[in-house]
């Protein structure tokens, strides 16, 4: 597979983006396939953006917000969670494996948790690729 696998990660400015900064400060290592897009709140991410990224060839998409109850904007992450269920359900309707999308909660003080989420997503997509590459799967 010549195409470089990339994961788009929408990170909330107040928690996961800060945690990603902290992961750097702590020199935690995670896969190089992650491309973080900073958003002000996980509730800002329109489901279409997730679909758009997959349509454009992203291997997977993550939305990472603050722990429930700790939203900087009171309840944006609850909104994101409600939408994430929509996205997960709809992905299958639209022909994508629902595993390609994941929502996660990480506080600004949890860089290791973030790095682990990145690693886990990357591994999950790698195993998905293996399944995909098998002849019985529906390929491109």
């Amino acid at each position, binding site marked *: 597979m010549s195409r470089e696998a990339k994961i788009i990660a929408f990170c909330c400015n107040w928690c996961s983006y800060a945690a990603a900064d902290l*992961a750097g400060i702590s020199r935690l290592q995670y896969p190089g396939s992650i491309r973080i897009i900073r958003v002000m709140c996980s509730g800002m991410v329109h489901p279409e953006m997730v679909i758009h990224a997959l349509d454009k060839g992203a291997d997977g998409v993550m939305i990472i917000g603050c722990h429930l109850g700790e939203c900087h904007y009171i309840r944006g992450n609850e909104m994101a969670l409600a939408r994430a269920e929509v996205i997960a359900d709809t992905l299958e309707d639209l022909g994508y494996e629902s595993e390609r999308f994941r929502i996660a909660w990480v506080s600004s003080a949890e860089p290791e948790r973030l790095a682990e989420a990145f690693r886990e997503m990357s591994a999950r997509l790698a195993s998905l690729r293996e399944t995909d590459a098998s002849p019985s799967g529906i390929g491109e």
Partner: protein
Amino acid sequence: MAEQTTIGAALVVGGGISGMQAALDLADSGYYVYLVEKTGAIGGAMPQYNKVFPTNDCSMCIIAPKLVECGRHPNIRIMTLSTVLDVAGRAGNFTVRVREYPRYVDVTKCIACGQCSGSCPKSVDDSFNSNIAKRKAIYIKYPQAVPLKYQIDPQACLRLKNPDKCGVCAEICPPGAINFNDRERDHEIKIGAVVMALGFQTFDPSKAKVWGYGVYPNVITSLQFERYLSPNGPTDGLLTRPSDRKPVKRIAFLQCIGSRDKNRCNNEYCSAVCCMYAIKEAMTVKEANPELDVAIFYMDMRTPGKEFDRYFERAKNEYGVRFVRSRIHGVEPKGTKGDLRLHYISVQGKQVEETVDLVVLSVGLETPDSMVKLAEKIGIHMTPDRFASISAFMPVHTSKRGVFTCGAFNGPRDIPQSVIGGSAAAASVSALLAPARHTLTRTLPPPPELDVRRQTPRIGVFVCHCGTNIAGVVDVEEVAAYAATLPQVAHVARNLFTCAQDTQDLLVQEIRDKGLNRIVIAACTPRTHEPLFRKTLKSAGINEYLIEMANIRNQNAWVHNQQPEVATAKAKDLIRMAVAKVSSLTARKPLRIPIAPSVLVIGGGVAGMTAALNLAQQGFQIHLVEKTTQLGGNALHLFQTWNGEHVPRYLKGLKEEVQQHPLIEVAYTSTVLAVSGHVGNFVTTIRTGANRKRVIEHGAVIITTGAKRYIPEEFEYGKIPKVVASIEFDKLHMHNETRVANGKSFVFIQCVGSRNQERPYCSKSCCTHSIQSAIKLKKEAPSRQIYILYREIRTYGQRERIYNQARELGIVFINYEMHGPPRIKKADNGVLVEVWDHVLHRPLEIRADVVILAAATLASPEAGDLATLFKLPLNSDGFFQEAHVKLRPVEFNVDGVFVAGLAHYPKPLEESISQALAAAAKAGRLLARKEINLEPNIALVDPVLCDGCGLCIDVCPYQAITLVEYRDGEGNPLKTVHVDQVLCKGCGICQGACPKRGVDVAGFTYAQIEAQIDAALDQSCVLEEDA
């Protein structure tokens, strides 16, 4: 002599974080500030640290923007290499003589190119790096120094010692800035007030050989350890053994080096910060290498601050840092290879010997002798511990009127306390100099802004090396060359430190010379640095929002430092994404909001009254809302402060002052019912008494709603009348009630309801409170037997003195952490307390006449309602969560709302007062401007796409969206939504709901996010994989 007038300027002595904060608050509040710093650059100690606790933020990253802010503030004059000679005059009108020592480099000419340093032949120990590295005789203190100007160390320079020698720097300096004939100059400055933020020095452990410091190379101080860990340090953050550069496997931290010690030094006090920084440093190394064995040897872990105990628990349970309760008497060598041996006693009383590679001495803080002398010269009283003598009731006032103090000069303290102190001093100065506000300040008109709407984007990309932080991993040359190939990129440059002050000047120059109209900074994180670069854009005459940062350090170079190729490729992607986004950014104008010059203070405790009084003294109208029928809050139950000052007397005076001040209006039995509006123009409805409602318009809010006490459920409280809570006991004690008067034996039990599973935080003031009560009891009748059963005695800072005093008086301290909490039984004529001794490991029985429970401080139950009304976050313990634990300790992300006192976290009286003053400083700073600019980070409605379906209205957490009807040109009725520009906080939750892209947040529009996605996934940019 003419009548003395008040001078609208202040002198801040000391350019550390506390002094900088005081200077910034004052300069923004309408006073001119002289910031005097004895070294060549401001910043103090913070730039030396690797990270800060408990957020683990990179220290330099969070202070660098503040440095630059000080450096370019039009109303702050930084005077480096300067010391105060004397202060004459009186409050409001001082004349100060300041001596400026020669820099030997003309600051107006120096361009900080560094060629001088490169060719200087003389190397000496670099004190900024705690002497673990060398610097040249001509040098800058650190790369991000402000001002970024070289200086010559006259002690080291060959030329200055002998005019016939060297002088190579003068020959090589391109602008000819070297001046060997520079001489010291004295300045006479007229100011109205002085803020002493003289700072601290760390204890020098070489004075006592016993720890092997200066003898064994593998014994280092915690500050040296910070420099080893710091990515900007001489080892680029790589920790090896100093003796042989081998990897470190076992590290021991020894606490209380130069603190809590009458023997090796005369520092009886606790340095208050070492426990936390040792945990931080231990966590940092464990994080990088979990296999390391890291142990902290301590007496009491003093982690009483907000989120500190959780940090401690995390270090212990998640990171596997070993905590050993044993003070290490000395460090011995083991063999000749550099190993070190520790010989200590376990809590069980068994000998243990450990061999470690590295010993880190957690050195304490102390006031330098030179500062003690200066203080004496100015006439400031000092404590026996050599800190400024201050009353708990006036925590930033010195014994000399008009002279204020803050920071570690007031006693050892951490960064937030220093920042709070800086702001509190600013508030006190503001109150004193209020008549002269705005008399000496100037406002520079911003340069005219270029209209870029019609221009095609000309993007400038600036790639930061960040020393070796980025350039050591990412091939920056390759990345820069790649950036130049991207569409619309007109200019690419690389900088060593893009955040340095001189780089800002360079950026402005490049923007103008190359006609750039959009900027990408590929460096660190926008969270800390974007505001800085925005100001740079503004001063270059382009709209400050036409910038995007590519985070190629924190989220790239640092997390892929083992894979340089991956990091280089990703850096290109990140820059491509930023370029894609920046080209569609649009100019935005800040929202200008007029400000109502009044403040609503919610809560009439000491914090609330202090803030109200200070702001009233500054000349603002105050509405003080108190839910009960009287002012005073929790302080009504207090007897004395930690140093024995009488609280009721002080409280009476404060209440009278508040009640009599013409600008303060107190509403009793009142609560906040509803809030609308926003910073500058809040409209708050309060309910007074049963049913009277009133509407108050105000520009800012200070929340000082206090806390409530825990009602114990343990230790037979409520069942045995001789078991009382500490606040009740204070009352009994004050009135010498029979239980107290006839009592012969008293037992205090600490941590009742604190530091448990349900409330994993420390209530901070109880240790001090119990000890103070115990001392008073003992002094009243020395024959009384007094026992304090504790888990960790947390008499941080100079409070340690009362702990020492208590023991000297024979008060018995028994630690129940190891063997479990005491058991309480009813006895014949008293209470029987059973507890185990922590040293002898034997059961003890105490017959007590009174058992006093040091009950926890709990978050106020009303906090939740207020949080909802003002849209503020609470932490998981129910206290208000400030904007940034370190640098914004009284602010929220909601503009115009501030917090102080127990509503923020349990704390003793003087810290509440200090914080209240800091909150007042922030409110005053806001109100001093009659108009403010708000960040236009708001959702904008596209009238072409929005049709008013209303799906977004209910989703807005700020109720900023309303449905509006209008008619088009042909009179057809149409609908759309309107977003209130001030209520909107720019979260974009509406954007996530809209099915037709009718509303999105400036700077994060659908198009911009899509552009980033597309750029990230742009396959044309992927290099073919090599076969």
